[in-house]
């Protein structure tokens, strides 16, 4: 790729990130992929529901086929969701629902190339979250299959990464979600075989770049940040986190300090990158823009307090919020890592925290959502129970909250559930 094109793409990427950052106007937003419009679990919307139950505040509840932990993604009237079923979960499902009433707009079924092991009852081949730009939707499955469909459900292209490279070896099933940024579709494929990071042209599926990684098995998703002014792709993995140039896939820096099993996705804020891992791991705050091994030079603080194994954290107004798998919610000062508060919420958590500048949603495995206010004086505003287990991270769009239980997808009606 010539230098001029690289510069142009870099300018475009910065513009895109600036535009994304500018959408903090409180207007309704889509939730186009893993962790929302900015990949950090936070929406700019302000009017969000805080109270519901099985019998109240639910606009619709629909049964989903098979099993899946992927987050439903929303664009305007479309709700896209994936699932898998059948022997070894080799039957893949890609659905579009109508957000008004949960009706099935289309339902496509595909075969998966190479199912892996998975966590019975908690995961399947449909753990990665799809991503959409409103005209197309991309879905990645743990079988190694990647599909691009238009919003009418027509197949545009597909790839089997395991037919092209090697089959995935992952005892809990692949979990990394595709990241769509600046006309690149980026996937992290960490497993016991040769791990790699790959960027594709989202319109054709053709490789733009592919970088092998030394790490083996992990379940995290790349995160794009411009915390340091330049765009950096933050990729967590075994024992360390790496920063890459998103345009070329070239590694820029590495910081050691994560555990062997890396699951949560990074976030950023106020000029810092935040990563965490567990169990028994630590959270780190890293200054961006480094070069080489930055463990000693760019890690601002490190603390073991409250580190989760699975749920991803959020960062809101100077505070870093975590929830451990065993139900302890922790708030740390973003600049110092010092604890601000801790609370015991539910019994166990797999879903990641999401929210807004004023409210955070913690959905536990029993299906109860604790809604907390943000800030150093955070309070539990409500606890809202659903009648089925939840392992999937919810999504927020146009005032509604979408919660995927083990069997059903719920739409919490933003209008009827406002306080």
């Amino acid at each position: 790729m010539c230098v001029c094109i690289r510069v142009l793409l870099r300018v475009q990427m910065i513009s895109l990130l600036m535009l994304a950052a500018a959408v903090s106007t409180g207007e309704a937003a889509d939730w186009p992929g893993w962790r929302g419009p900015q990949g950090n679990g936070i929406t700019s919307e302000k009017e969000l529901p805080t109270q519901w139950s099985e019998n109240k505040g639910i606009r619709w509840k629909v049964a989903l086929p098979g099993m899946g932990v992927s987050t439903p993604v929303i664009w305007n009237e479309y709700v896209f969701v994936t699932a898998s079923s059948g022997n070894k979960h080799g039957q893949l499902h890609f659905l579009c629902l109508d957000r008004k009433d949960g009706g099935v707009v289309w339902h496509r079924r595909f075969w998966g190339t190479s199912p892996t092991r998975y966590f019975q009852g908690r995961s399947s081949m449909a753990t990665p979250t799809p991503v959409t730009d409103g005209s197309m939707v991309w879905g990645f499955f743990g079988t190694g299959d990647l599909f691009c469909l238009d919003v009418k459900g027509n197949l545009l292209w597909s790839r089997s990464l395991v037919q092209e490279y090697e089959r995935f070896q992952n005892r809990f099933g692949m979990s990394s979600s595709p990241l769509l940024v600046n006309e690149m579709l980026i996937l992290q494929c960490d497993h016991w075989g040769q791990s790699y990071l790959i960027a594709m042209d989202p319109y054709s599926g053709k490789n733009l770049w592919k970088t092998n990684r030394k790490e083996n098995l992990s379940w995290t998703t790349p995160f794009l940040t411009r915390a340091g002014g330049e765009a950096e792709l933050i990729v967590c993995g075994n024992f360390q986190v790496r920063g890459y140039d998103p345009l070329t896939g070239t590694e820029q820096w590495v910081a050691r300090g994560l555990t062997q099993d890396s699951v949560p996705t990074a976030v950023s804020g106020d000029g810092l990158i935040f990563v965490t891992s567990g169990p028994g791991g630590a959270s780190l705050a890293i200054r961006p823009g480094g070069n080489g091994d930055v463990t000693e030079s760019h890690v601002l603080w490190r603390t073991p307090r409250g580190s989760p194994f699975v749920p991803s954290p959020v960062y809101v107004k100077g505070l870093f919020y975590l929830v451990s798998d065993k139900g302890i919610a922790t708030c740390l000062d973003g600049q110092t890592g010092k604890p601000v508060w801790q609370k015991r919420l539910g019994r166990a958590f797999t879903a990641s925290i999401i929210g807004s500048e004023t409210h955070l949603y913690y959905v536990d495995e029993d299906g109860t959502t604790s809604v907390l206010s943000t800030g150093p004086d955070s309070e539990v505003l409500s606890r809202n129970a659903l009648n089925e287990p939840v392992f999937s991270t919810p999504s927020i769009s146009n005032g509604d909250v979408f919660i995927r239980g083990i069997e059903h997808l719920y739409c919490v009606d933003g209008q009827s559930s406002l306080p």
Partner: protein
Amino acid sequence: MVPGQFDNGSFESDYDMRKLGLVLLLTMGWGNLNASDDRVTQWIETIRSVGAQGRGSQEARAARTQLAGRGPEILHDLLVGMDTPDIVSSNWLRSVFDEIVDRTWAQNPKLIPEQEFHDFFMDSRREGRVRRLVLSVLARRDPEFPGRIIPGLVEDPEFRFDAIDHLLKQAKRRQENNESEQAITLFQRAFEFSRDENQIRTAADQLVNLGQPVSIVDQLGYILDWYLIGPFHGPGTSSFGTVYPPEKNVDLQARYMGKLGEVSWKRYRTKDTFGTVNLVDTLSPCDEAAAYAFTVVTLEKDHHAQFRCGADDNLSIWLNDSKVFAKEEWKNGTRFDRFRVNVKLKKGRNRILVKVCQGTKYSNPELSNLWSVQMRICESDGKGVAFDYALPEIRKGSQLNDSER
């Protein structure tokens, strides 16, 4: 009159003209049908030509659009097109197949070509997933169809599991109705043909309950009798690539310096129903190590067979001093038939050496570091191969028994 041939260069009557017209029409129509079939074939081939990195997708989209405009007359062509190990092209064709089936079903389900579908389904050489797709359509037409057909498919490569599942349910119902003889017959049939761990265990347990004990070990061909040695020290994950002394030469009299002190070969016969040797119990709990298991089996004649194994962590196998298998995969657990390797066993004695590594300790303290191996010798369809042991005896005091574990 033949088109193109005229009496005196002119038509004799309007009737002849009409006949000529009809012939011409039929000829052109038949030609068009042939051309149409050729186009369907061409479109399917275009889709089957999609390659890596989405190559050919644009052409595939165009072909897909054309195919989707057709009707149930091309469904069999689509099935044949999907009958390929290439999942990518198969999924393209499936998207067309599903669309045409749904549309046809809405118009008139009887237009689905049932006999063609039935023949495709019954052909065990076809891709199993495509046969399952066909089954779903046939079951839509006739919900009783699977119940009539599946139970007879106990040796079918795709539907064996489903057939055995049906047998076990039937047997259970008979058992609950105190129809013991019929239950025994059904459980025995399930036991004979099952190749699934849970199904064969269920059948065996019920036969024991009914006073008809069977041997899973014999049925599946598990190796029970071994010599074991270890642990050898392997820091981190180095043990997989490190050559320890047993790999150079199996000397049952030898002693070596291991990870926890001196080690030597010890005789061990597992009592586990599925032949699992628990190396933590038999040798020692430890991390970052390797151990070996050695046995000698004899066969009456040369035999092409399979080794089917599970190991935690990873596995290497030597047969008659040649390495036939090596798989490095840490912390994945010993699972039934996880690894399969085709081997040729010779008439008489066959030496089998197995290496099982142990990785690093789990960072999650709730997870214990298991270390085990199981291995069986079977036919390609999973039925156990009969063999005898020919393990040499070594000096007194080298045999593990229950009190030593």
